[in-house]
């Protein structure tokens, strides 16, 4: 079997952001469920949190290609 260890590193780097994005949207969904009128207020905040959490996975894929042989 051949391949590149850097891609395993990318896989590992997606775990944290994956969980984080799930938690963020879970909080967003329960917030909207409790108070449907707060949707407009919560949406940019949820997307912002999603974007910030996602950054680590993006670093992961950039570095995976940097270190791939």
């Amino acid at each position, binding site marked *: 079997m051949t391949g590149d260890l850097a891609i395993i590193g990318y896989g590992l780097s997606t775990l944290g952001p994956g969980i984080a994005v799930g938690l963020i949207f879970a909080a967003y969904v329960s917030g909207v469920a409790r108070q449907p009128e707060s949707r407009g207020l919560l949406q*940019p905040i949820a*997307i*912002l949190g999603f*974007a910030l959490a*996602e*950054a680590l996975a993006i*670093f992961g894929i*950039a570095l995976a290609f940097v270190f791939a042989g």
Partner: protein
Amino acid sequence: MSALLAAGEGGGFEAPGPLDFWQPLAGGDTQYALTRPMVVAVLSVVLISWWLLRVTRTLTVVPGRAQYCTEGVYGMVRNGLARDILGTKDFLKFVPLLFTIFTLILVNNLFGIVPLIQFPTMSRIGFPLALAIVVYAVYHGVGIQRMGLAGYFKHMVPPGLPGWITPLIFFLELITYFVTRPVTLALRLFGNMFAGHILLVLCVVGGEYLLFDADGVLKIAGIAAFAGGFVMTLFEGFVQFLQAYVFTLLSALYIAGALADEH
């Protein structure tokens, strides 16, 4: 793409990689070559200018379809992003910048799934980097203009901290303001476009390889790969819009952070 398909035919399968994004059209294989993303970027600028000039020349009180769509996008950036984040006092100054950033990124991203063009400009790091440098210069510029050089550095540290922790927080905020923000801003857009496009290329090229070069049951897998490519194209369209929105949202937040009187 055609060179890639040809490469996939003979011998083993060659997975798409970063090199597929280097597509010089003229000027040879040097750093001064005219590349495909450059042409796509110029095309997007021409397209946006033509569209906006055409629509805004004939504004009516009861909007037509084109005017309604354009006003929808403009209203989203002006009211949904700029006014809500920057505050009603001085948001109008930044609306042109934010609207330009949003439309430019949106059109360039969507070119990634428009047939025949099919190249997201922002999957070359130079383009998002240039946009990030513009935002970087603007938010430091307005911050220093508003508070003076010393005041700007002072405002990075939130007030009311115990004395011994202040240098540490200042150091962290310094890194955030000068390194993390521009780097993540550029890399987020680049990474999303790059990864999304490579996934689409993999679905199509891999599906073609399985369909024509593999035998037996694997041919069905090739059809499944094409179906996956179709679904991912729709998903990419969503991601492309979202990333244009996120880039504009973060630009507005960084400018707001430099404008804010207190933390």
